[in-house]
């Protein structure tokens, strides 16, 4: 077994330090070491995006990163999105548009969507779909997810009624 390495990083505004095996995937560090189980694992090939988090403000798939790669980084997970009990506008939009059912893809979907709006505050429907191309959902057919993201961007969903 290889030597453990020392990690320090900020997660949802709190600094953490831990000794981990070098092979520890970031998603497992967040879930199993820090207990932040909101970030989910839905595949093993970087395909589904359930593990999407923000690293220094940008979306990343935490199943395809070593925890070591996030040394010193500022990480936000779904648990860090709602501020003092108030849902983030994206979370609120997902709720109002019924953009979730089983909820498993939801944290990753919400993190991908907020990253998208950070980069493109008024995306078109097509740009929303492109922005979510790396996040799979099995329940919603994406209809209400796309509506939610458009709604969170202050736009109505053309063609997305019902």
């Amino acid at each position, binding site marked *: 077994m290889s030597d453990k390495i020392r990690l320090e990083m900020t997660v949802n505004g709190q600094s953490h330090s831990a000794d981990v095996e070098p*092979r520890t995937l970031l998603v497992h560090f967040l879930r199993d070491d820090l207990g932040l189980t909101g970030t989910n694992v839905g595949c093993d090939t970087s395909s589904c995006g359930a593990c999407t988090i923000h690293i220094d403000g940008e979306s990343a798939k935490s199943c395809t990163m*070593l925890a070591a*790669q996030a040394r010193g980084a500022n990480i936000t997970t779904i648990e860090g999105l709602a501020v003092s009990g108030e849902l983030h506008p994206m979370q609120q939009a997902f709720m109002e548009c019924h953009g979730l059912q089983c909820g498993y893809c939801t944290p990753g979907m919400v993190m991908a969507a907020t990253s998208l709006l950070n980069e493109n505050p008024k995306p078109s429907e097509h740009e929303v*779909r492109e*922005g979510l191309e790396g996040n799979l959902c099995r329940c919603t057919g994406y209809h209400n997810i796309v509506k939610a993201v458009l709604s969170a961007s202050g736009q109505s969903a053309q063609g997305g009624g019902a």
Partner: protein
Amino acid sequence: MIPATFDYLEVDSADAALAALAEHGDEAKLMAGGHSLIPLMKFRLATPAVVVDIGRISELSYIDDSGGHIAIGALTRHRALETSDLVKAQAPILAHVAGQVGDPAVRHRGTLGGSLAHGDPASDLPAALLALGGSVVVRGPSGEREIAASDFFTGFLETALAPDELMTEVRIPKVPNAKWSYQKFNRRAQDWAIVGVAAVLNGESRVALVNMGATPIQAGAVEAALAAGASIDEASAKAAEGTSPPEDLNGDAEYRAHLAQVLVKRALTEAS
């Protein structure tokens, strides 16, 4: 799906990376963004004893105007390429293709050098490099050398990069007025191309193919036909000449050969 154990070395300079390679030799594997390597390690298709993390060598992340060409640090992320005003102005196909890789989260982490060094024939960026006639700069124990894109991809997931060398820079000719097109055909947006075509028409015509052989390749027959004055129809009919397309669940070689013709025609039409 958990990687096997390894020792981890983070380096903060190109020299330190080279030193690590010199020390650990074949046992070591460089990791930039990790988006090619980590999936292989999770399936234990790659089991390096030492992972040398070069992802945070800041001196290798830049996009500079070097007069005749754009100099891009090997660790520049796809997202930076996609949004760079310099790249968009001087080599717009590269910015566009960078925006076609994987999905947004992948583009935030993946690097140009990592993608090129992986040498995957199904990747987007190698084709853009070939179509642009770019080159890569690599540094090793005996110094630095520049390798033309056309000499870089040597076999399936193999490149001219020696095991003790590090890619430091990618050089892209400025082609602000070139006509270009990138055609990517797949069944699902996030996936690799079943076949892709990058075309840059700038006096001479360069056409590169994605997923039409063991390596990223140029469509030599198409380029020759265009040079000889052939029409788009005539040239695109030669798209599959000299290729050996792979066969998988998305299509057999015959279908890919056909797709290459269709997509080359679309690329040349769009670029004309």
